[in-house]
């Protein structure tokens, strides 16, 4: 693991130093445009540096945090890291989809680290359904991109309604934007290092990354929509955070708020602001989460009131918390200040008036939340000392260093100095700090009334969706064989009748004695099986049709098929002979509309098969000739059927026998459940 950290460190160093755009393509499935292509451009660099920096601090932290299930958790974390790195560097839609879903899957496993708790399992499931389901949007985008331009590479992706909606779905679910914001606070059931890493610093930023990456193909109406969605998310979740008593949930809400802000900024094409705020947020929020983990290990609670003053856990923890909180508030000269400054600069241009006011209110609310936390934590009466001294305190605090030191390099990193000069932005910034302080410190009772607004926030859409799924599967799964058969055959009928070519006239069938005999056997068996009333005679009649078919195969030069058919008949008959005494009596025949449906479907299938067989005789058979010609020359076998099964189409056969094996498991399961 330490090797991995070293590698990440070197990687970050390399990224800081390099300005060259790297790109590599490994072709995989050419005909579907699926390549493993990766490009590292400035945008990827920004995300890679952020991910890398957090990783370097978080892995040692997680190593010391987890006493149980350490290997499982760290292993999944490394797979997650792979998914993350892959997601921000891929330049092929399907490739991105793979890595994207890898992060959703590992997030599912990591939220469910404590898999014995029902809450954790439910939260993991919700997160998987929302983010994994949203990821399917990327698949939709991939397919439409391939259909439109024949390529999945990013440079070939152009505007198309399906592509855009696919990307939006994936991005908004991943970044927990309205109306999908509910999963992120649930995901706090995960242990703190996981929340710090996945649900604050890295994975949830993927949605922002995706919107940023495809910003150029999004039409302006969609971009405006993103600004509004982001602003709504920002305000709703900031309000939530304002009244939250649990520090962890509070951090989750402010994370969602920050994501809303980022989405808005991307929608406004304010990339400088987004980049700086993104970096600042990764540092202070990651640090706050990790510090919270330290408190939790000491006092086994994440309630704000239980934590008391962070300084009672030691000077390092206290000052790190203070710095991170100041960064959240946007106090100079910490990195968060620059983030906020850039955002304000952009908002105050008032290009998009309604959304800009919303954003301004949102920023004010976040500052108010910060002050409220500040008031509860640092002006707390609880000064009782608690020893919290372990390696994790250092690793957690170390992350805050980024917030403080990054501005020193601001000139090189972001191209701006430590001081912007005194202009109206600074005035607004100070005004926001003062207003936020007043709200956060003194006016929570007034704001209490706003909780009413929040009751509209979660419309229970997710629960309704789950209920709908349940209903749909119940109506599709009536657990009666006859219904399944009816549905299957009806489906086959509809699909095949739309595909099958109509029979051409002029094809004659030679009648010979064996053929007449075979067809009469099939005919008699089929008719009789409809009218018999006992199981044994019904089975015998069906066997009769099988025997007739066997005769057909033998007559038309397919001895293999004939042997197989007769053996299957024999096995079936013998099995029935063994078990006939245990089967219940036959149910009386259905009457009424169901019977009419059954008859109709049966006749339809019969007609379909007849047409199929008739057409088969008419084809010019290019495949047949190919197999006849090359069975010996290429597969070294004289039995054409066998060479097809084990050589030409071996992969198909392999798939079929796998299905057979699964069917056997199904029989086993069915028998057990009876």
């Amino acid at each position, binding site marked *: 693991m330490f090797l991995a950290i070293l590698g990440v460190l070197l990687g970050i160093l390399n990224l800081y130093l390099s300005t060259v755009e790297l790109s590599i393509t490994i072709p995989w499935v050419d005909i579907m445009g699926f390549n493993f292509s990766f490009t590292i451009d400035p945008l990827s660099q920004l995300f890679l540096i952020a991910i890398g920096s957090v990783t370097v601090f978080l892995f040692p932290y997680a190593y010391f945090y987890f006493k149980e299930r350490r290997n499982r958790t760290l292993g999944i974390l490394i797979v997650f890291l792979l998914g993350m790195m892959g997601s921000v560097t891929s330049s092929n839609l399907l490739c991105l989809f793979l890595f994207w879903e890898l992060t959703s899957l590992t997030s599912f496993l990591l939220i469910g680290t404590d898999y014995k708790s029902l809450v954790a399992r439910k939260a993991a499931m919700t997160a998987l359904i929302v983010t994994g389901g949203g990821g399917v949007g990327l698949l939709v985008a991939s397919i439409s991109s391939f259909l439109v331009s024949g390529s999945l590479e990013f440079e070939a992706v152009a505007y198309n309604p399906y592509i855009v909606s696919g990307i939006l779905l994936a991005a908004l679910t991943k970044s927990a934007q309205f109306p999908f914001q509910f999963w992120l606070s649930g995901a706090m059931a995960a242990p703190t290092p996981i929340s710090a890493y996945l649900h604050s610093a890295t994975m949830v930023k993927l949605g922002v990354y995706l919107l940023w990456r495809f910003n150029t193909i999004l039409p302006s109406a969609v971009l405006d929509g993103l600004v509004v969605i982001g602003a709504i998310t920002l305000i709703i979740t900031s309000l939530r955070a304002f009244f939250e008593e649990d520090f962890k949930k509070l951090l989750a809400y402010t994370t969602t708020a920050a994501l809303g802000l980022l989405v808005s900024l991307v929608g406004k094409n304010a990339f400088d602001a987004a980049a700086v705020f993104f970096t600042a947020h990764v540092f202070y929020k990651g640090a706050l989460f990790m510090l919270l983990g330290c408190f939790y290990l000491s006092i086994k609670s994440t309630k704000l009131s239980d934590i008391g003053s962070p300084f009672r856990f030691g000077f390092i923890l206290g000052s790190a918390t203070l710095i991170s909180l100041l960064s959240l508030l946007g106090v100079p000269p910490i990195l968060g200040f620059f983030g906020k400054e850039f955002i304000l600069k952009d908002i105050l241009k008032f290009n998009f008036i309604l959304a800009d006011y919303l954003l301004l209110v949102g920023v004010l609310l976040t500052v108010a939340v910060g002050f409220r936390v500040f008031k509860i934590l640092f002006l707390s009466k609880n000064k009782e000392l608690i020893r919290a001294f372990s390696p994790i305190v250092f690793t957690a605090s170390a992350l805050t260093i980024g917030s403080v030191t990054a501005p020193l390099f601001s000139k090189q990193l972001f191209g701006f100095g430590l001081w912007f000069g005194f202009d109206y932005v600074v005035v607004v910034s100070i005004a926001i700090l003062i207003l936020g302080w007043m709200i956060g410190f003194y006016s929570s009772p007034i704001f209490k009334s706003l909780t009413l607004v929040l009751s509209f926030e979660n419309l229970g859409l997710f629960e309704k969706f789950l209920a709908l799924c349940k209903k749909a599967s119940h109506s599709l799964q009536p657990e009666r064989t006859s219904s399944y058969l009816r549905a299957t055959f009806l489906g086959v009928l509809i699909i095949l009748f739309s595909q099958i070519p109509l029979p051409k006239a002029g094809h004659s069938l030679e009648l010979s004695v064996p053929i007449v005999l075979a067809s009469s056997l099939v005919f008699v068996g089929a008719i009789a099986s409809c009218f018999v009333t006992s199981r044994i005679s019904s089975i015998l009649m069906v066997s009769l049709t099988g025997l007739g078919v066997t005769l057909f195969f033998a007559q038309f030069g397919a001895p293999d098929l004939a*042997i197989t058919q007769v053996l299957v008949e024999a096995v079936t008959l*013998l099995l029935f002979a*063994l078990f006939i005494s245990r089967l219940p009596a036959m149910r009386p025949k259905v009457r009424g509309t169901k019977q009419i449906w059954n008859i109709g479907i049966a006749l339809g299938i019969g007609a379909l098969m007849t047409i199929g067989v008739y057409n088969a005789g008419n084809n010019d058979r290019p495949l047949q000739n190919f197999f006849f010609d090359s069975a010996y020359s290429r597969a*070294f076998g*004289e039995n054409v059927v*066998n060479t097809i099964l*084990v*050589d030409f189409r071996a*992969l198909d056969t*392999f798939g079929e026998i796998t299905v057979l094996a699964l069917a056997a498991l199904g029989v086993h399961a069915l028998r057990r459940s009876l």
Partner: protein
Amino acid sequence: MSFVALASRVIIPLQIFLAFFFLFRGHNLPGGGFIGGLLLGLSLVLALLGFGFQRIKEAIPFEPSTVIGIGLFTAGISSFFGPLFGKGIFTGVWGSTVPFIGKLSSVLLFDVGVFLLVAGIVMKVVYSLMEEEC
């Protein structure tokens, strides 16, 4: 001894021999792994009719799931011979001739896998239906 038991005593050895015979001649003449496996499974059903479930279960020392697994594994393994010899996956690789069996090849190995799997499935179905308490 019932008539069925007597008949199974005569028929089963023949049937097992026939199963292998069909398996090995399958590449050039009617037969193959699927047919061979069905025949082997049929002999098992016949044995059950003749001797009863308990005796058969004691006489056969392995679980049906194991047979299915080995069959699937064998068929899967045979696919890798092609790439080993610089050809595509599932491409046949041919070896030397052995009496009765014929030419050894990865294709034959694949068919043996199918053979075991089909026989195992018949066995599994029969077993799970016969077992009173599952």
